C-alpha cells in the first residue's frame, strides 16, 4: 500500500492540472498527475484556446486579467507548437443597442487598465473585410491572444516533469478520499494534498460539488490564410432571453496560425453523449454565416464536441473543498479554462503553501457555494 510519497496528487492532466503541476513543482513540491487519457485530452483538446479578458463580473475580470498577464509573461518561453498569437479580440456589434454595450465595455476596461479601441462600422470593415456589411461596429481588445491548448498543456507538464513531477497516464481515478486517490487498476496514490482538476468529470469524483457539463460544438476549416485576423465574438446576447438553462449558439470565430478557421460556439445543457448534435451544429453554422457569409463555401475538415465544466455562478472553484481536510478543487472553468489556468494554479498553490495570493480569492473559494448554491 503506497505511503504518502507525494506532496500533491493532481487528478486531471488538462490545462488546469498541468498548470497546477508546473506551479507546484516550481515551489519545490513533489507532484504526481494522474489522468485516464493523454495530456490535454478533455475540454483542453476540444476548446478554442482563446486568452481573453472578460467583463461579465468583477471577479471574472480580475481572474482573467491576472491570468492573461501570466500568459504574456510566459509567452517567450512557449515553443512554436503552442502557436501563441496576440491576435486580439473584436466584440462585434450588429446594431446601435449593441454599440451601447461596446461603449460600456470600453469604459469598463479603460478604468481597469486594459487597452481597447472602439471601431465604427467602416473601421470594423477595414479590420475584418469578410464580415458582412451593415454591422454597427465593435470593440477591439488588441492584447487578447489565441493558442493551441493541447501543446500548451504539454509544455506546462513537461516543465513540471523537468522539475521532478511524475505523470501517470492511462488509469482512471475511481475515487478520491482523504489523502489519496484510488485508480481503476486498484492501485492507490497517496499525497499530503489532493487536487481535483478533473474538469467536466469533477463532480463524479467529488460528489456534491456543483459542476454540470455544458456541451459545445466546433468546426475547423481547411487553410484560408488572411481571411480572418482577430478572434471575433458577437455581442448579440442582449437580444435573447438571458437564461442558464436554455441551449444557445453564438457567433465566435478564431484564426489559427495555420490559416484554418475555428467556428463556434454552442452551449447545451443536460447532454451527456459526445456525438455531434445536428440541430445545434446547424444553428451554430447558420449563425456564423450570418456574420461572415464567406464561411459557407469553405471546406470543413472536422467537427467535434466537448464538455465545459460549469458552475451556477460562472466562476471556477479554486481552493479547499468543504467537508475535506486535504482535498482542493481546481475546476469549474466553463469556457475560460485556457485563459484562467495559470492564475488558477498560482492561487491554488498560494492557498496550499500559505502564501498571499496576488488577487482577492474569496469569489473563487469552493466554500462560497455552501451558503449560496440553490438549484437553477
Amino acid at each position, binding site marked *: 500500500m503506497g505511503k504518502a510519497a507525494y506532496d500533491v496528487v493532481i487528478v486531471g492532466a488538462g490545462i488546469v492540472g498541468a498548470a497546477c503541476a508546473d506551479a507546484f513543482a516550481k515551489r519545490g513540491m513533489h507532484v504526481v498527475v494522474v489522468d485516464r487519457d493523454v495530456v490535454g485530452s478533455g475540454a483542453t483538446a476540444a476548446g478554442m484556446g482563446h486568452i481573453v479578458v472578460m467583463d461579465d463580473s468583477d471577479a471574472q475580470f480580475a481572474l482573467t486579467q491576472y491570468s492573461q498577464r501570466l500568459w504574456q509573461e510566459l509567452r517567450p518561453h512557449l515553443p512554436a507548437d503552442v502557436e501563441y498569437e496576440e491576435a486580439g479580440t473584436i466584440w462585434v456589434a450588429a446594431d446601435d443597442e449593441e454599440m451601447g454595450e461596446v461603449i460600456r465595455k470600453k469604459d469598463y476596461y479603460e478604468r481597469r487598465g486594459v487597452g481597447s479601441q472602439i471601431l465604427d462600422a467602416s473601421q470594423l470593415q477595414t479590420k475584418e473585410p469578410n464580415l458582412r456589411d451593415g454591422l454597427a461596429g465593435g470593440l477591439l481588445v488588441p492584447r487578447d491572444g489565441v493558442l493551441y491548448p493541447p*501543446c500548451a498543456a504539454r509544455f506546462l507538464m513537461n516543465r513540471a516533469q523537468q522539475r521532478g513531477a511524475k505523470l501517470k497516464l492511462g488509469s482512471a481515478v475511481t475515487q478520491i478520499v482523504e489523502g489519496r486517490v484510488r485508480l481503476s487498476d486498484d492501485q492507490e496514490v497517496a499525497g499530503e494534498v489532493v487536487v481535483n482538476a478533473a474538469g467536466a468529470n469533477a463532480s463524479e469524483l467529488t460528489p456534491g460539488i456543483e459542476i454540470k457539463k455544458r456541451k459545445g460544438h466546433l468546426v475547423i476549416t481547411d487553410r484560408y490564410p488572411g481571411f480572418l485576423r482577430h478572434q471575433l465574438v458577437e455581442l448579440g446576447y442582449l437580444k435573447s432571453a438571458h437564461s442558464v438553462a436554455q441551449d*444557445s449558439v453564438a457567433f465566435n470565430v478564431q484564426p489559427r496560425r495555420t490559416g484554418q478557421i475555428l467556428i463556434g460556439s454552442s452551449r447545451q445543457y443536460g447532454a451527456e453523449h459526445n456525438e455531434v448534435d445536428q440541430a445545434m451544429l446547424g444553428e451554430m453554422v447558420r449563425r456564423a454565416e450570418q456574420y461572415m457569409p464567406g464561411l459557407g463555401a469553405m471546406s470543413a475538415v472536422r467537427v467535434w464536441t466537448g464538455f465545459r465544466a460549469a458552475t451556477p455562478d460562472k466562476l471556477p472553484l479554486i481552493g479547499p473543498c468543504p467537508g475535506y481536510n486535504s482535498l482542493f478543487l481546481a475546476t469549474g472553468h466553463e469556457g475560460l479554462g485556457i485563459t484562467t489556468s495559470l492564475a488558477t494554479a498560482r492561487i491554488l498553490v498560494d492557498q496550499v503553501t500559505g502564501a498571499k495570493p496576488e488577487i482577492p480569492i474569496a469569489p473563487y473559494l469552493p466554500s462560497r457555494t455552501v451558503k449560496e448554491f440553490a438549484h437553477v
Partner: protein
Amino acid sequence: MNKYSRERFDVLVVGGGPAGVAAAVCAAENGAHVGIVDENPNLGGQIWRAGLPGGDHSAGASNWYARVRAARVSVLCGKRVFHQPDAGILLAEGADDVCELSYRSLVLATGARERFLPFPGWTVPNVMGAGGLQAMVKSGLPIQGKRVVVAGTGPLLLAVAAYLQEHGAEVPIICEQAPWTKLARFGIAMVRYPGKITQGLKLRRNISGIRLVMNSWVIAAHGEQVLLSVTISHAGTLEQIKCDYLACGFHLVPNTELPALLGCRIRCGYVQVDDFQQTSVKGTFCAGEPTGIGGVELSLLEGQIAGLAASGQDSGARAIFGEREKFRRFARTLDDTFCLRSELRSLASPETLICRCEDVPYSRLQEHTSWRAAKLHTRCGMGPCQGRICGPATQFLFKWNPDSVRPPVFPARVENLAVSPVDEPPIPAATGGLQ
C-alpha cells in the same frame, strides 16, 4: 449558396464500383426503387475506372452497366456522402449542390484505397500509388515513353505494370516486397480459381520483358521538384534506377469510415457482416472490399447478395453463398501472401514526413504512444485527408489504432453542415457570446 435536393429510395447504394453496381442491379431488377451514389463523374470505382471518352471498358463492366440502365437505377455521380444527420438519411455533396438521400435499406460499397508507407523522398512529385498512377493515366496523363518503376506489394502491381506498358511506358522493374516462397504458394493456390489462372497467364504475357524482383522494395526516392531516380534494395544490395514516375503502393486498406460513422461494427479493421452481408445495423448492408480485400469477383458476388437481401430476396441471395465462399478463400490467401515484412518499418528516417497534410516528421511521432496523443500534440491526422494516408502508415509503424470517426466523414462545405432534414424550432442566439 448551393442547390438543395431530396431523393427517396427503397435501396440506396453508396459506391459505384463493382460491389455497388451489382447490389444496385440486383435490387432494382426486382422492382425496388434504387439509387447509387458515387463521387466520381462515372460509375466504376477504381478497378473499373473509366478512361477518357472512347477509352476501353472491361467487358464485364459493360454488361453490368447495361443492366443498371435497363433496371432504371438512379445514378447520382459527382456526389460525396459526408454525414448521416438522422436515421435513414444520408447527406451527399456535389460541386455546387447538396442532396438529402432517404432510404429504407442501405448498401455500403465504399471500396478500398491504397496503403502508403513512408520512405525518404516519398513526397516528391511523381511518386504516386500504383493504382494512383494508373488512375492518372486513365484520366489523361501522358505516359508514352516515360520510365516507371513499379513497387510495393500486391496483385495490383502486376496489373498496373501491364497497363502502363500497354500504354507506351517503359517499366524497367517491378519490386515486390513479398518473398518468393509466399508468391509460389499463392501461384499454387490459384489452381483452385481457373478464372484467376487465365487472368494470371494473360498478365504474364503482358508483362513479359519486365524484370520482376521479389524480396525487394524502394528505400529512397530522389529529386527536389520532381522525381529523378529511386534506390531499391534487393537481397541486401542497393541499386539506383533513373525514372520519371514511381508507382508504389502496399496493397489495399478498406474504406470503413462511413460504415463506422453509421455504427457498423468493425472487427480487425473490416466491417463485420452476416451471411446476407448485413452489418450490425439492421437494414444496412456492406459489400466488397470493406468486408475483406478480395478482388473484383468477390465484390460482385457480395454486391449481388447484399442487393438481393436489401430488397427482400433472401432465397436469391442464399443461392450465391457457395460461390462467395470460394472467393472468400481466395481473399484470405491474398492477405497472407502480401502481408508486410518488418523491414518496411525501418525505411523512414527521422526527417521523413509521415503526415503529409500537416508535414509531421517521423521523429516527432516517435515521442508519442498512441494515435490520439500524436494527433493532439503534432496534428498528425488532423488534415483534410482525415488520417486516410497517415493512419494506415502509423498503424503499421507503431501499431497505433485510429480513434473513433466523427462527421463529416469527408471534408464538406461549411454551409452543408447546416443541412438539417428535420424541421425544428430555431435555437435562440447567445447568452454571453463567448465560447
